[in-house]
């Protein structure tokens, strides 16, 4: 991971800028600080739709005696030894219902990227299982996730709360952030890492990011050591921040452009 890294300080700054815009929209984001430390995370709850198995009781047990209890997730190919009793999702027995989502944005120091944690429950308070979460992913995104299910959405322990959450795995963040950051740098556009990242991963799990975030939330004031670096195959020039050449014209724009990199945002 030599490019597209995000250091923790910049993460916090990006989050605070996102938070300010969220307050102006009443979009519901809050910052939760860990007691006695600088660390924290963004949090938001929202009602959305999801596909849940309607004939389950509080503990997630099927009340339908004829429900199949066989393990048959279609994208599993190498599992011969499991003997767990896992319900099979039959499309016809699940239905669209209102789901309470809770989203957390944390910082991963190992991967130096943000990570999206979320959990979902029915209005009766029953936690959704992984299969239901899968089913709730918009069909447009489902094929992409199905190829490598255990690499993308998995159940993990929340590193600050110790509770079970679902996680979008961070190891592929570089793949989609790299081109965006590079383009923004080439075109002298401001980029708030968290806003850009969230606009890609959020919709996959039902989290909407209104367009105004992308136009209204600035980049944090950056110093050479804290800005996200564009990918490069040659070594970076020592401690110089990217500057637009002084004689080049401003890039053409159809929307109001924020000031070029290197100047203080509003």
């Amino acid at each position, binding site marked *: *991971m*030599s490019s597209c890294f995000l250091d923790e300080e910049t993460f916090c700054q990006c989050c605070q800028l996102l938070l300010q815009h969220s307050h102006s929209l009443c979009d519901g984001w809050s910052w939760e600080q*860990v*007691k006695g430390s600088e660390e924290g995370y963004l949090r938001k709850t929202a009602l959305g739709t999801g596909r849940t198995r309607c004939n389950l009781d509080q*503990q*997630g*047990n099927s009340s339908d005696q004829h429900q199949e209890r066989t*393990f048959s997730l279609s994208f*599993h190919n*190498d*599992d011969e*030894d*499991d*003997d*767990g*009793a*896992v319900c099979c999702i039959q499309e016809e027995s699940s239905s669209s219902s209102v789901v309470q989502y809770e989203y957390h944005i944390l910082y991963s*120091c*190992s*991967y130096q990227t943000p990570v999206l944690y979320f959990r979902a429950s029915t209005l009766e308070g029953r*936690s959704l*299982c*992984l299969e239901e979460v899968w089913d709730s992913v918009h069909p447009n995104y489902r094929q992409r996730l199905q190829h490598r299910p*255990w*690499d993308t959405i*998995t*159940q*993990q*322990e929340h*590193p*600050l*709360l*110790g*509770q*079970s959450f679902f996680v979008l*795995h961070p*190891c592929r963040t570089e793949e989609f952030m790299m081109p965006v950051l590079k383009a923004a740098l080439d075109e002298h556009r401001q980029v708030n890492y968290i806003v850009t990242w969230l606009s890609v991963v959020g919709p996959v799990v039902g989290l909407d990011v209104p367009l105004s975030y992308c136009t209204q939330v600035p980049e944090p004031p950056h110093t050479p050591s804290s800005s996200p670096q564009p990918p490069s195959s040659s070594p970076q020039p020592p401690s110089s921040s990217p500057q637009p050449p002084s004689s080049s014209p401003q890039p053409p724009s159809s929307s109001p452009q924020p000031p070029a990199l290197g100047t203080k945002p509003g």
Partner: protein
Amino acid sequence: MADDKDVLRDVWFGRIPTCFTLYQDEITEREAEPFYLLLPRVSFLTLVTDKVKKHFLKVMKAEDVEEMWFDFEGTPLKWHYPIGLLFDLHASNTALPWSITVHFKNFPERDLLHCPSNSVIEAHFMSSIKEADALKHKSQVINDMQKKDHKQLWMGLQNDKFDQFWAMNRKLMEYPTEEGGFRYIPFRIYLTMSDRPFIQKLFRPISSDGYTHTLGDLLKEVYPVAISRDDESKRYQVVIHGIEPLLETPLQWLSEHLSHPDNFLHISVIPVPSD
């Protein structure tokens, strides 16, 4: 003086004698006898308890059986933590055998991860190894390995094959000589007296001026509470694989020799027992 390689073997083959008792409210057709098992410190509960499940299923009806889970003195045990870590954290100052309660109902959804198959355990294990290598080598070593090499690491753990595992794992323990050690040390410090399950931060084994960091240096930096001042009696034990290494031990050495198979140093900080 023991050879360093002996340490690797001692860590791998560590065992904890355990007694599994069925939760009293589970519905059985007849009395369930407790089941005794030696658990490998470096493995995971759901990977090594098939025998436990089969034993208790003999006295239960299929419709009364859901996903198996465990608790110790009322605390649900996280299967995705290595067994040795769970023991050190919750039970190290209690009498052996370790008494674990077995459940087949009322799975604690908020506290425990589901484990429907061994693929899930494998995914967790490999995910930890990848994260550790991201810290040690910017993922270069793990990404250079082939899929079959990754599989060998998992099969070595699953089948308790020390040589098979270390044939691959030794690559993850190498570093450029001129660096003196890994880029960052993969570690987690687990706390019992906090809502927060663990502390994990970036920490270098060798400082920029060539100073070799010790276990004590790590604790002073990320969890100073663990180290008592000279003028007060010791309040906490810092435990790795059931022992308290000297605080002067170089962190790089600990990472190479006392890491779990997932390549992380899992460190427990527990209160000194008051007799």
